[in-house]
C-alpha cells in the first residue's frame, strides 16, 4: 500500500517529541525523501512515459529520469511494411514476421557502437541513427524534423511534486532515518543511546526492505523467465524467428 509522506512526518515527530510545533516539518520532509532515495530498492524505479518538446534537436528529460528505455516520434506509423514468411525446416510450419520496413528506424545509444556495427560487415549502418543522453537532455540526430518525441524511461517513483511515493512497509525505516539524522543535527537534545538505536533501526529495516524487494521482483518475473527458458529449450527455432 502506498502512503503519503505526511504519515511518515507524523511518525517521526512522535519519535522526536516534536508534535507541539511545525518548525521542523520542512526539514523532516526533506530527510524522509532523502531516505526513500537511499533505500535503493528495485521498486524505487518505475517505467514512465512522457511526451517531450524538441528544441534544437534536444529534448529535456524529466528530472526524475534514470534510464532511457525507448522513444518514438509521434505520428510515425508502420505503413507498408513487408511481411516475410519463413518456413520451419523441421516440421514445415510457417511464421510471418514484419521486416524490411522503411519506417523501422534503429536508434543506437552510442556512436561507437554504430561504428562497430558497420565494421561487422552486415551493412546495417545506413538505417541506423545515434542519440546521446547528457546532462538530462536527449540529443537526437541532426536530421530530426519532429517537434515532439514520446519517451519511455525508468525513473524514480515520484509524485507530481517530485517527492518519492512511499510504501507502507518503509514507514518505520524512513522515520528511523529522519529521526536519526535530525537527532544528530540536534545532539544536545537527544541522548546517544536514542540516536544509536534509531541508526541501528534504519540499517536493519533498510536491509530487510531491500531483501524483500528483490524477493518480490523475482516472484514477479518468474513467469517471464520460465517463458524464455521454455522458448529457448523447447522450441528454439521459433524463438530465433521471433527475434530476427
Amino acid at each position, binding site marked *: 500500500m502506498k502512503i503519503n509522506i505526511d504519515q511518515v512526518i507524523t511518525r517521526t515527530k512522535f519519535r522526536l517529541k516534536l508534535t507541539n510545533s*511545525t518548525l521542523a516539518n520542512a526539514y523532516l520532509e526533506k530527510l524522509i525523501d532523502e531516505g526513500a532515495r537511499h533505500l535503493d530498492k528495485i521498486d524505487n524505479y518505475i517505467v514512465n512515459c512522457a511526451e517531450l518538446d524538441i528544441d534544437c534537436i534536444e529534448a529535456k528529460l524529466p528530472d526524475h529520469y534514470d534510464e532511457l528505455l525507448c522513444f518514438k516520434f509521434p505520428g510515425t506509423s508502420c505503413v507498408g511494411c513487408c511481411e516475410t514468411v519463413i518456413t520451419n525446416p523441421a516440421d514445415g510450419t510457417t511464421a510471418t514476421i514484419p521486416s524490411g520496413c522503411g519506417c523501422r528506424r534503429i536508434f543506437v545509444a552510442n556512436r561507437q557502437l554504430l561504428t562497430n556495427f558497420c565494421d561487422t560487415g552486415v551493412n546495417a549502418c545506413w538505417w541506423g541513427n545515434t542519440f546521446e543522453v547528457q546532462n538530462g537532455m536527449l540529443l537526437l540526430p541532426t536530421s530530426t524534423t519532429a517537434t515532439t518525441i514520446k519517451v519511455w524511461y525508468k525513473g524514480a517513483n515520484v509524485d507530481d*511534486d517530485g517527492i518519492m511515493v512511499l510504501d507502507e512497509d518503509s514507514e518505520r525505516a524512513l522515520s528511523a532515518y529522519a529521526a536519526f539524522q535530525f537527532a544528530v543535527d540536534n545532539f544536545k537534545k537527544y541522548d546517544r543511546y536514542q540516536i544509536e538505536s534509531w541508526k541501528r533501526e534504519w540499517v536493519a529495516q533498510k536491509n530487510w526492505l531491500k531483501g524483500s524487494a528483490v524477493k518480490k521482483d523475482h516472484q514477479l518475473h518468474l513467469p517471464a523467465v520460465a517463458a524464455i527458458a521454455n522458448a529457448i529449450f523447447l522450441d528454439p527455432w521459433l524463438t530465433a524467428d521471433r527475434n530476427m
Partner: protein
Amino acid sequence: MTFPELRQRIISGAVGGSMSADVRFDFGYIDSLINSARATLIKELFKEIGVVPPVYYQPYFPDYVEDMQDSANYSTFYMPDLIPLDGTSDGGGFVGSITCHQQFNQVNNRSEFADMQRDRIMKAGRRAVVLITKGRMEVHYKNKIKEFRMEIIAADPLEVPSFNLNYDEYPIDANSLSRLDDFIMKIHLDRAQNAVSDRIANNRDDSSRPFKPQQ
C-alpha cells in the same frame, strides 16, 4: 482563573491580604511579573517532560487586514510574541487550515526562510510556509491565504486578540499556580517590598532615613 482574579491573588499575597495603593504593586508591574513567571514555568515544564500541556495554548485566528499587505506574493498578519522553548520548538503550536486538515510549515527567521527557498522540497509553494518575525507574520503559498488558525503559547496571553480579559481563563494549569506564586513572591515582590523607597523630594538619598510625613 481569570486574569483579574490571578492578579488580585498575587497582590493580596504580597501585602498580606490588605489592599494597597502602593505604586510598586500597580497592574502593569504585576501583569508583567505574571507573564514572565508563566514563561519561565513553561520553559521548565518543557525541559522536564518534553511537551507543553494543552492548557497553555491559546487559539489564534489571524485577521486579514488589507492595509497591512505589502506584497502581492504573500499575506501579512499581526503576530503576538511567542515563547521560545528550545532550538527546535517554540510557542507556535499548530499552524494550518481552519479545519486542521492541513499543516503549514513554520519558520522563525528570514535567513532560514531564504535558505529554504533554494531547496526543491522545502521551498514555499508546495506547502504553505509561515514566516514569523517580531510582531509580524507572512504566509507564503502559491496563492494568498487569508484565513487560517494557530494554537500558540503567547509571551503575553492578553495580547492575543481573541482573549477576553474578564471572562477567559488565564492559560496556566492549576498545578503550576503555587509555583507561580512562589516564583513571583520570592524573586520579585520580596525584593520590591523590602526595598525602602526614597519618598522625600529633596534631591538627596533619604532611603536609609525613616519616612515622616510632613505635618
